[in-house]
């Protein structure tokens, strides 16, 4: 049986480790269908839409997303594992959770810096937000 896995990545070191963990699982024989997802924070306001076409804005999201997906693509290609890539736009926590639930994934995987204290409170908290909000099984990789 094949499980559909969604790996949320942003090109950072922790998301690289999360993907490495998934690659390890595949090498150990797990039947996984891998999807990598990058979420872009929406940048357009009414003002921005006045001066830039929606196609330009989407093109920007695509470029930024492709760049943030790049390390994951390289790792998966090097491991010879097939995958599908996605870019979505929205509030980070909400979009990751909704994407995983609406596309009926079996497992959600993402990295976390695992920071404590102020640094963790400020930056490392997307994983914590997803942990609180997700409705499907979640693996956090530190």
């Amino acid at each position: 049986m094949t499980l559909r896995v969604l790996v949320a990545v942003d090109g950072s070191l922790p998301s690289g480790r999360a993907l490495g963990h998934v690659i390890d699982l595949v090498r150990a024989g797990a039947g996984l269908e891998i999807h990598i997802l990058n979420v872009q924070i929406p940048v357009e306001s009414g003002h921005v839409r006045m001066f830039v076409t929606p196609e330009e804005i989407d093109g920007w999201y695509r470029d930024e997303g492709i760049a943030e997906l790049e390390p994951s693509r390289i790792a998966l290609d090097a491991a010879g594992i097939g995958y599908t890539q996605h870019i979505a736009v929205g509030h980070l926590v909400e979009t990751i959770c909704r994407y995983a639930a609406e596309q009926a994934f079996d497992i959600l995987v993402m990295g976390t810096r695992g920071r404590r204290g102020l640094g963790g409170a400020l930056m490392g908290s997307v994983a914590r937000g997803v942990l609180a909000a997700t409705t499907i099984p979640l693996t956090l990789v530190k």
Partner: protein
Amino acid sequence: MEFLFDGGFWLSVLQIIAIDILLGGDNAVVIALACRRLPEHQRNRGIFWGVIGAIGLRIVLIYFALHLLALPFLKIVGGLLLLWIGVKLLLPEGEDEHGRIEGGTTLFSAVRTVVIADAVMSLDNVIAVAAAAKGDIALVIFGIVVSIPVIVWGSRFVLRLMDRFPVVIVLGGALLGWIAGGMLVGDVVWHDRIAARLPHAALVAGLAGAALVVFVGRWLSGRMTARSAPLREIPLDGHGDG
């Protein structure tokens, strides 16, 4: 140099920086988008001249705004506008605005887009900064210069901060309401009469303005977000933009 030790001076500087960051995110996005299609070696020059043009224009606009605000009734008008700007900051984005200028692929057209966009977009910013500066052009320039690096290079961080902590936006709205309140009672038309009856008028009006913006903003946005938007996915394969 004694102004450096004045608490009121630094409070005004902090307010101006906060306004520039909160209301300047738009500009950073337009600059990035307008220069996106430029060839690599021209992109940084486009960003540089776009920023220079936008900031010069803004200082000129604020200079005029400072002088206009000394006229009767204009602080009342400005205060009311600022209350509306504060409420608008708290509202989710609508789909209503159209009629755009093309980004273009030459250095000149990119810079032109940035400057024109800034002239249109900085109205809210100009009113807020002029009010916070209380007539001091040096303060305006100082605040703008300090916030340039944040707007140009830190927009990603600001976006992330707002994504993680939506309360930042509420605080920004409250700040604008606070400035608006002080501005309303500070108009020359009634400033002396109010000051005679209410010793702490600016404080009271500021608190009332902040509370009003947050209350109205939350109430309106609560009504607007009732329907949930579909998830937005950007297609990767086809070259959709044609």
